[in-house]
């Protein structure tokens, strides 16, 4: 039954090719069906596609980690589908394909299958990146993404040579140790583009700052969350913590360099794009501390970041001129940016506090130092932008659709709610962490008690 999560959106996307314009009406219904279906599935089930058992065929694994990640990503898609104004004609079909492919990426237990879904996600993302005639950014993304896809494929091939099978659980059990450094480096290069880790994140500002609200709102939240989950699945569950030291260094470099770059930007959307890169770096270095608390804090922070980023990107791309004319949207924007900085009573404060706690527990003082320093930079530029948007001479006004105002306001209230009672998000991130760290349970569930 798990396969339906992928089959239903894909079938709808195929059926709606001749009537592209109508797809935006069906999108929220399909996402709702998916969420309802998800709650009716039993956790810890393994489904073999075509009936070929692991490690021979492709398996879809639904454990607590993939269940909660699916829930988060599908809810993000639901939110995006409820504001159809930001989707141009015909692009709803791409959202359906993206939904199918992210669901597949989260569920799959097979490395080549994950490459295929990575390719679909990337292909849909390139096209979404070309919205608002942003062909330069999309082209840059296409080149970087395709080369990274090549590295991921090569990593999959090497792991097949080293193991004799493509199954994740089998790779983690039987991979020849001389292959480990090569496979992990190639898979990391492949994933670094999509998770926005710095030497390979040069495409992000060009793509996110195209002026279309849809591009950053979906790529920076749903797709990033999926990729971070996949990275955790590969490096924490399969390689069992190997190679995480390298990831830690790259994460810290990304965090500090991207915050400095964001500070120097003259355009709001570019600043937000660099801030998005920086948060990805922070989450990466936090989860690569590889303790239960650190991984929990990392995914908790990623959830907060995703919630804030939907608000920030949608409002930054739709509001023209002064916030005094659009007070509600302005208040949501300010709340989201305060959460990003980490002021108390906002959600970001909770997760930054947890990150600090968990890294002190691990005896690591480098991450807290860098985090506090980057928070100062972050506060400086986000406050500057808040002041500039509330008090400027721009008299242009544009009516913002009511549903954008309503949804961003609800999300902003959610941020305050999480800041006071963080249990909801903590439960999600705890469950993701449980699933990712429980390496033995994963292998036995997939390979059936070997």
């Amino acid at each position, binding site marked *: 039954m798990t396969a339906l999560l992928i089959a239903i959106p894909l079938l709808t996307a195929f059926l709606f090719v001749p009537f592209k314009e109508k797809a935006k009406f069906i999108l929220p219904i399909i996402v709702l069906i998916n969420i309802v279906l998800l709650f009716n599935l039993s956790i810890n089930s393994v489904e073999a596609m075509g009936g070929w058992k692991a490690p021979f065929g492709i398996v879809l694994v639904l454990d607590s980690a993939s269940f909660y990640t699916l829930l988060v990503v599908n809810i993000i898609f639901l939110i995006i589908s409820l504001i159809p104004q930001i989707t141009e004609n015909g692009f709803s079909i791409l959202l359906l394909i993206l939904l199918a492919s992210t669901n597949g990426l989260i569920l799959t237990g097979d490395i080549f299958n994950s490459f295929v879904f990575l390719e*679909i996600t990337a292909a849909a993302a390139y096209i979404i990146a070309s919205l608002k005639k942003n062909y330069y950014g999309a082209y840059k993304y296409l080149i970087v993404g395709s080369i990274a896809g090549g590295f991921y494929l090569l990593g999959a091939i090497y792991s097949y040579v080293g193991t*004799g099978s493509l199954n994740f659980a089998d790779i983690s059990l039987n991979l020849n140790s001389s292959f480990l450094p090569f496979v992990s480096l190639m898979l990391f290069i492949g994933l670094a583009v999509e998770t926005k880790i710095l030497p390979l994140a040069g495409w992000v500002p060009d793509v996110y700052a195209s002026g279309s609200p849809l591009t950053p709102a979906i790529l920076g939240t749903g797709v990033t969350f999926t990729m971070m989950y996949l990275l955790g699945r590969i490096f924490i569950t399969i390689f069992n913590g190997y190679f995480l030291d390298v990831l830690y260094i790259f994460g810290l470099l990304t965090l500090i360099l991207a915050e400095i770059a964001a500070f120097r930007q003259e355009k709001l959307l570019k600043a937000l794009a660099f801030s998005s890169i920086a948060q990805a770096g922070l989450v990466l270095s936090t989860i690569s501390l590889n303790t239960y608390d650190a991984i929990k804090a990392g995914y908790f922070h990623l959830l907060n970041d995703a919630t804030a980023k939907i608000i920030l990107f949608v409002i930054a791309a739709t509001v023209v001129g002064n916030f005094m004319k659009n007070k509600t949207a302005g208040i949501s924007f300010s709340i989201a940016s305060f959460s990003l900085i980490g002021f108390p009573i906002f959600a970001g404060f909770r997760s930054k506090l947890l990150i600090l706690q968990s890294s002190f527990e691990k005896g690591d003082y480098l991450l807290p130092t860098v985090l506090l320093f980057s928070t100062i930079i972050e506060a400086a530029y986000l406050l500057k932008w808040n002041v500039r948007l509330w008090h400027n001479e721009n008299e242009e006004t544009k009516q913002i659709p009511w549903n954008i105002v309503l949804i961003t306001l609800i999300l902003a209230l959610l941020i305050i709610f999480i800041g006071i009672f963080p249990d909801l998000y903590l439960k999600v991130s705890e469950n993701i962490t449980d699933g990712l760290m429980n390496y033995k349970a994963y292998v036995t569930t997939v390979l059936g008690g070997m």
Partner: protein
Amino acid sequence: MRRVFALLISLGLILFFVNSLSILPEYGNVELSKVSNAYINKSVNGNNEKVKFGESKDLEDGAANVVTSIVVDYRSFDTLGEVTVLFTSALGVGLILHGFKRKTYGRLPNFILRVSVGILLPLILLFGVYVFVHGHLTPGGGFPGGTIIAAGILLLYLSNEEFDLSKTSKFVESYAGSLYIVVGLVGLAIGGVFLINFLPTGVVGDLFSAGIVPIVYILIGFKVGAELSGVIADLYREG
């Protein structure tokens, strides 16, 4: 400075790949892994008996072409994904080039082209259909078969300025893709597993063998042919 960095990174990658060669098995001396063995002997669930062409009956997978048996049966879910990759790319070409006019030259194409299309087109279409119908027996299958058919459609576009197939190709693409998933869903309804081979597999090497494999390959052939024809129609515009 940029060039120095680029040089250093390229040198690093070259060193990395040269280093990685030493751990790969020697050329021609590869031991088949358990998965490859199971695929070749068609016994993921069986007992590793040798498969005999034209004799072995009712195996778990009936395709004589080992590549096809992997692509459309053992790893059919990946193929569904690859079909979607092509679908997404074709859709993207259509969305990005939307709004440009069809390119016209205002004069009749070359006489040789017009006449030879009439002779070549049926042969090309027949060959394309042959390739994807026999995908489970001989090298080929839905992807090359569909491409051959699209090449025939390209000839039609070149030889006739009025020719337009973009609407039809959209419908064919849509229904062929949906039917692939429907075949998978029928498997889910009958066998309880998505994309399970629910038809009898027959004797290895017969035209009517291998269960759903030829059906899926015919659908892929139509879908790929329609998609590539759609791409041709989209690209044939004034920029």
